[in-house]
């Protein structure tokens, strides 16, 4: 790190140590042979020989570097530290990095492929060979592909943890079978950014910022927790101020200068009030807005009669935002008007080094949550803090995906299982609706391959998933690729153990600062063996048990699905170096590193290494840094291109229908700004789209400009007198990662309690004290949880962490026992009741720690009591719930869960009804981001009866104003569950 030398000058603190007496890591040139002292034998000096192999963490999405200390005698992984050569994580990690060691050595992990014996979910399992597994699935794949039904196969992914590999194998299959977890996660965050710039994620330059506005908890979760937390705190030490918008006191809010505990779903009101202050007080960056915003387009629709001048545009916008006074925002959000004025002034002062970030949180919790994203990005746009040092850039500028060997053509299919017509603007697949579409009878699923996906637990409405997944007529064959047991794997046909972070290959790159890097995950035991001269054909030979890595699985599976190459698939799995022979996974990466990673061959050569050796040795490479202001890059107009439209967009005469870029249009390549052609952004206009024409064109003109619309948990819908509250069930803890960290004993030890946070006044109103049991009723069921009374939450809002509540149905199998409770599951035709037999308790295993488990709380599985709430535009599942909270009833027991399937189905239909289906020629706007984008032809909307009906409905008009939708989807606990009994008996003594 730079900084000023202490000799002769005193520098500020917070830049990290600069003395060199002690190192953080062994020097890189000794990694192949490092002699470490044994900590357990200490103070006896017992030396151990290690090979230090870099890899990448696979707990959250940040992909931080790790280094594994592989014992040279036993090839056991001794420990995992950070990788100082990883540009994103810079040698540091969160708790989940070192906890990887627990996951590798978990005595509960699955070491061999298992096949179901008896009925699905019946709990009978038998060990089978991988050959059997591959043949069984390859046969089904072959049948589907040979019959030209590639969409019979679905790849449904939780955490991808890689860039590009899955896209490629799906394209080799010509299959539109990519389904992902995104709409339980970030569709709301993404959609708002996407509509602005065509790029769906922000890349805030925290280290250089002067004011950071965080909507979510980036010092403990967020996207890229550790890399971003490092830089947020670095910025803070350099004088930046931090504001955090969150109804709950997160650790992040604790560290912030401003904690803005807005009522959930009202964030956009506060943000637009700030925007109004910036406009009214002329604190915006006139030049930036004039040059980079599609203001002409805005003005033309806002005031068609007005002359297209920038002054008129500002007048029109100020008129539109007139309503968002600080007083209005205070009434909506609960944040004092004066505070908003102060924050607005701070933002203006900091600009253009003003950064912001919204991820999950408000965007994932609320109906119209994506509007909060639109509104926060508006602040960056108005202040010119886009692409500036200390501002926020589109993530594409700070992310690099290398092209693979023999990239297949785009697929020609459209899969309505993932992309139903009702949600033409959905930012990602409508994954939450999957079971409901099955229950509707819209389709069957011949082959389902889920990967680290646990929808029964993680998704809302898990009981609908259980009922779909266990029905062999709906899902014919289900293979669960997973490193560890999950509630979902329990209802699969095959459980296929896949490696943890240090047991597999992947590449990835994420926007963690104003530069680009590529990280390389590798199976460290295999790499150590190979470096020591052992031949390893497949990674599972080096991994524990028969744990495979997915890369090799997909190669083998694809090869076997097209053994003679007649389906045209096999060609993509032939070696670039040994024509006609099956590619080795190492060759896949070798080719990529040699051919499509800029600068890597040169860096490798400088050290006398091949590119692959370089990546094996360092685990990461930095591609570039200080990637600011890329929209300003000048463009030379190609032959035939013309500047067209209101926004002077440089447009090619034709669009290539066989290749649609992931985002943006291939035929719109630049915009003319003050007489110079510049690259701009990935929108159709190449400008930042304040007014987004496709939002208007596809049925939502009222929200085409950043605006505020009330959420389904708005305070006007909630009556505390009737026991109603807004439930925030989404917050994450720094020590946990969804349902993937239950197998880390050190993490479970630190976080296992699962309280319902409530403020003292609410506790009194509900009639519970700290530690008492409360019953929380949702629209489709209820759960019983312990209350925690805290000052750290907005009054009127209750919250419970997303992580806890794991369960299993059998004592010894089905879930690891570090985190799960044993439960019974009692069903009738429509309902289910889960009840704990016991919480976490000690057990005998090869790890003596399992007998020293000292906690018993396994938490409460709340998600299963939530109905699906698809946002009609972004497709995001709106996580927050209007609930009724009462003291537990006398028969209630801790962690009881009740769900009514019939109610779940009707809530699904209620929300489906507010969607506005595609009714034109296309299934969705072609420029919008879509994973594994098919060819243009696939976008054609079938002109069938459903389309006719949708068109008729759209043309008839009279659809409700989107700002009124919250009332349509509202529900009444009194009607659904009956009024609260006049004398509710509090279950005291609920303390455990």
């Amino acid at each position, binding site marked *: 790190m730079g900084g000023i030398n202490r000799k002769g000058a005193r520098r500020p603190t917070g830049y990290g140590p600069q003395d060199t*007496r002690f190192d953080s890591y062994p020097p890189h040139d000794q990694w192949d042979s490092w002699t470490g*002292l044994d*900590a357990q034998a200490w103070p006896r000096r017992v030396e151990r020989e290690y090979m230090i192999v870099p890899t990448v963490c696979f707990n959250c999405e940040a992909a931080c570097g790790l280094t594994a200390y592989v014992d040279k005698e036993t090839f056991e992984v001794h420990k995992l530290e950070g990788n100082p050569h990883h540009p994103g994580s810079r040698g540091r990690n969160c708790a989940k990095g070192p*906890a990887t060691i627990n996951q590798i050595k978990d005595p509960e992990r699955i070491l061999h492929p298992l096949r179901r014996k008896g009925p699905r979910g019946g709990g009978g399992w038998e060990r089978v060979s991988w050959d059997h597994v591959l043949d069984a699935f390859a046969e089904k794949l072959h049948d589907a592909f040979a019959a030209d039904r590639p969409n019979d196969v679905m790849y449904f992914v939780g955490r991808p943890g890689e860039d590009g590999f899955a896209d490629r194998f799906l394209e080799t299959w010509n299959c539109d079978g990519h389904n992902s977890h995104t709409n339980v996660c970030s569709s709301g965050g993404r959609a708002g950014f996407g509509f602005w710039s065509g790029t769906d994620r922000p890349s805030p330059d925290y280290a250089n910022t002067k004011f950071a506005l965080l909507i979510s908890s980036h*010092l403990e979760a967020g996207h890229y927790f550790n890399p971003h937390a490092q830089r947020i705190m670095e910025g803070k030490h350099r004088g930046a101020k931090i504001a955090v918008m969150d109804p709950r006191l997160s650790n992040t809010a604790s560290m912030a200068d401003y*904690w803005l505990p807005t009522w959930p779903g009202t964030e956009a009101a506060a943000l637009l009030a700030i925007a109004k202050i910036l406009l009214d007080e002329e604190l915006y960056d006139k030049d930036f807005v004039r040059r980079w915003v599609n203001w002409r387009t805005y003005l033309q629709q806002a005031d068609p009669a007005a002359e297209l001048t920038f002054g008129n545009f500002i007048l029109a916008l100020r008129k539109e935002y007139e309503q968002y006074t600080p007083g209005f925002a205070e009434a909506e959000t609960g944040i004092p008007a004066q505070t908003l004025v102060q924050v607005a002034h701070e933002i203006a002062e900091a600009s253009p080094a003003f950064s912001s970030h919204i991820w999950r949180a408000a965007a994932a919790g609320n109906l119209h949550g994506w509007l909060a994203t639109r509104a926060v990005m508006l602040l960056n746009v108005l202040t010119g803090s886009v692409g500036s040092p200390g501002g926020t850039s589109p993530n594409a500028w700070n992310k690099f995906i290398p092209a693979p060997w023999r990239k297949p053509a785009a697929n020609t299919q459209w899969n309505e299982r993932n992309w139903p017509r009702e949600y033409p603007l959905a930012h990602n697949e409508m994954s939450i609706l999957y079971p409901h579409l099955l229950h509707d009878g819209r389709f069957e699923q011949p082959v389902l391959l889920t990967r680290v996906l646990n929808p029964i637990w993680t998704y809302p409405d898990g009981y609908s998933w259980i009922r779909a997944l266990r029905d062999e007529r709906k899902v014919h064959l289900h293979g669960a690729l997973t490193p560890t047991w999950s509630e979902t794997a329990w209802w699969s046909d095959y459980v296929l153990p896949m490696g943890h972070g240090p047991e597999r290959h992947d590449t990835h790159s994420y926007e963690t600062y104003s530069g680009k890097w590529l990280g390389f995950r590798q199976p460290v035991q295999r790499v150590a063996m190979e470096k020591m001269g052992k031949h390893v054909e497949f990674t599972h030979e080096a991994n524990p048990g028969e744990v495979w890595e997915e890369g090799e699985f997909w190669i083998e599976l694809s090869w076997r699905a097209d053994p003679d190459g007649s389906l045209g698939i096999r060609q993509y799995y032939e070696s670039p170096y040994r024509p006609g022979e099956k590619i080795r996974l190492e060759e896949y990466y070798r080719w990529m590193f040699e051919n499509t990673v800029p600068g890597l061959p040169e860096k490798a050569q400088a050290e006398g290494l091949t590119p692959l050796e370089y990546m094996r040795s360092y685990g990461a490479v930095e591609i570039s840094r200080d990637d600011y202001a890329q929209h300003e890059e000048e463009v030379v107009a190609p032959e035939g291109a013309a500047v067209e439209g209101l926004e002077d967009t440089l447009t090619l005469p034709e669009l290539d229908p066989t290749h649609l870029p992931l985002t943006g249009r291939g035929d719109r390549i630049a915009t003319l700004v003050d007489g110079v052609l510049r690259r701009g952004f990935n929108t159709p206009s190449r400008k930042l789209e304040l007014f987004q024409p496709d939002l208007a064109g596809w049925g939502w003109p009222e929200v085409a400009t950043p605006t505020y619309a009330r959420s389904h948990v708005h305070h006007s819908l909630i009556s505390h007198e009737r026991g109603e509250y807004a439930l925030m069930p989404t917050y994450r803890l720094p020590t946990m990662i969804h349902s993937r960290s239950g197998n880390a004993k050190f993490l479970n*030890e630190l976080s296992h309690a699962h309280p319902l946070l409530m403020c003292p006044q609410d506790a009194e109103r509900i009639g519970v004290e700290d530690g008492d049991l409360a019953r929380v009723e949702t629209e489709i069921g209820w759960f019983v949880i312990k209350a925690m009374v805290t000052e750290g939450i*907005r009054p009127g809002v209750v919250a419970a962490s997303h992580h806890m509540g794991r369960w299993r149905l059998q004592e010894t199998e089905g879930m690891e026992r570090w985190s799960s409770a044993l439960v019974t599951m009692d069903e009738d035709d429509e309902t289910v009741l889960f009840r704990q037999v016991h919480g976490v308790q000690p057990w005998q295993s090869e790890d003596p720690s399992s007998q*020293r488990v000292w906690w018993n709380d396994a938490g409460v599985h709340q998600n299963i009591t939530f109905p699906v709430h698809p946002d009609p535009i972004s497709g995001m599942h709106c996580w927050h719930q209007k609930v009724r909270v009462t003291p537990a009833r006398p028969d209630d027991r801790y962690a009881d869960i009740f769900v009514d399937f019939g109610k779940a189905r009707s809530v699904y239909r209620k929300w489906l009804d507010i969607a506005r289906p595609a009714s034109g020629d296309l299934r969705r706007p072609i420029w919008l981001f879509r994973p594994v984008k098919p060819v243009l032809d696939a976008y054609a909307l079938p002109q069938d009866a459903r389309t006719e009906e949708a068109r008729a409905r759209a043309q008839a008009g009279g659809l409700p104003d989107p700002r009124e939708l919250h009332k349509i989807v509202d529900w009444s606990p009194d009607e659904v569950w009956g009024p609260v009994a006049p004398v509710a008996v509090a279950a005291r003594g609920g303390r455990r």
Partner: protein
Amino acid sequence: MTRIGFVLDQRSCIGCHACTVACKQEHDVELGVFRTWVKYVETGTFPDVRRNFSVMRCNHCTDAPCVSICPTQALYKRADGVVDFDRDRCIGCKACMNACPYDALYIDPKTHTAAKCNFCAHRLDQGLKPSCEIVCPTQAITSGDLDDPDSEITRLVDTVPSKVRAPEQGTNPKVFYLGAHDAALDPLAIAEGREYISQIPESQKIKLQALDGTATVVSDIAHPAPWGWKVSSYFLSKGIAAGAMMLAVLLLVVGAGGSELADVVPGLLALAGIGVTGIFLVWDLKRPERFYLLFTKPHWTSWLAIGAQVINVAAIVAAVFTVAALFDIDGLRDALRWAMVPAGAALAGYTAFLFNQCEGRDLWQSPLLLGHTVLNALVAGAGALAIAALAIDSPANVETALGWSLTIAAASSGLIATFDAYGRHPTAQAERAAKNLRRDLYAAQFRAGVVLGALLPAAAGAAFLAGAPIGVLAAGGAIALVGLWLYEDAWIRAGQSVPLS
């Protein structure tokens, strides 16, 4: 010189627990115990509320009480100032856990020996920083040489206001906190514990329950009391032995020649008491089979090591005295009766120095402690002899002497106990412990102990002196033994009932 220390920058710490887990991995620390951990403390009321993250660990004190009290040199200070330990030398006496004012030590469930942060000494010696420091996402942990003017840690400590934990303990910690809220570092600033991300272990909940601060702990770990009923019982058995030895001279001097109650019985009581004491002491060791290290690797700054020798000497004196009494070697017996007094007094009183050496327990720092141990030994000895007097004929003046002894000792013991519990205490921790003793956690047991151990025996003694039969004195003696145990047990538990972290 080199003085290695830590700076923990609370301005940067985000409470992520990376250090906790990295340390657990590096040292394979078992579940339930921690070398470094993060306590969450919430302060304030909505919306002016924050969660403070307190990183807790060994302070590598310049004047480390754990090193002084360790009887076998298992804990030691390295030349660079790091307080390190050798598990192979530890006998598991847990004295270090009571000496440490920071709750930094624990018993490793795997080796049954004491352990704590050792600054990753195995890494330091290879030129590497500790695991907790390198993992920290926000570089909130800085290690380095406090004596090196060029080091980052020196620069931080010199230019940023810092605090240490419990400076009043005089240990001169080498762990400095920057930007810490008082409630983050003061274990007594807490009003209660609530369960936010983890359950608070029962033993810790009890400790938190008694506090009357204003902040709320929402994540904390267990620090169960190191010493329990075996130590309380050792107090009593040793008291009987020491009291009997001291009283033997009294009985001999008042002219009890010829009565076994004046020589053989006290001698046998002393031997039996010492024997049982030894059993309790060794039984309480987590590694009892290593008790011999007390004699082969003694650390002479430790009152536990010195105490072992005191017990040895007392045992020899008592044994020879008893043999002389049994075989009527009067000359030897009479000569030794004068040695019995200092040997008995030392046997009783060394414990005061041992408990005084427990720097972590302020209740035990009382100036009355020496009087407390000696007087209670006299009560125990007199009580035991009074019971023996029922069975053994003895001259009236011997019984009268016993009566006076029990009465005076019990009355004085009661006074000291009262002063101890109700008097002024120099530190907040001692005051909290005294309240736990007299009013909160252990009040019932304490009061029963004082009534049974002091008031009733004194009354019984007085009644006997006023003419009641010997049975009353014996009953007073028996009650005294029960009461003393109750009292000592309450006092030992109360001393350990205040959280130090």
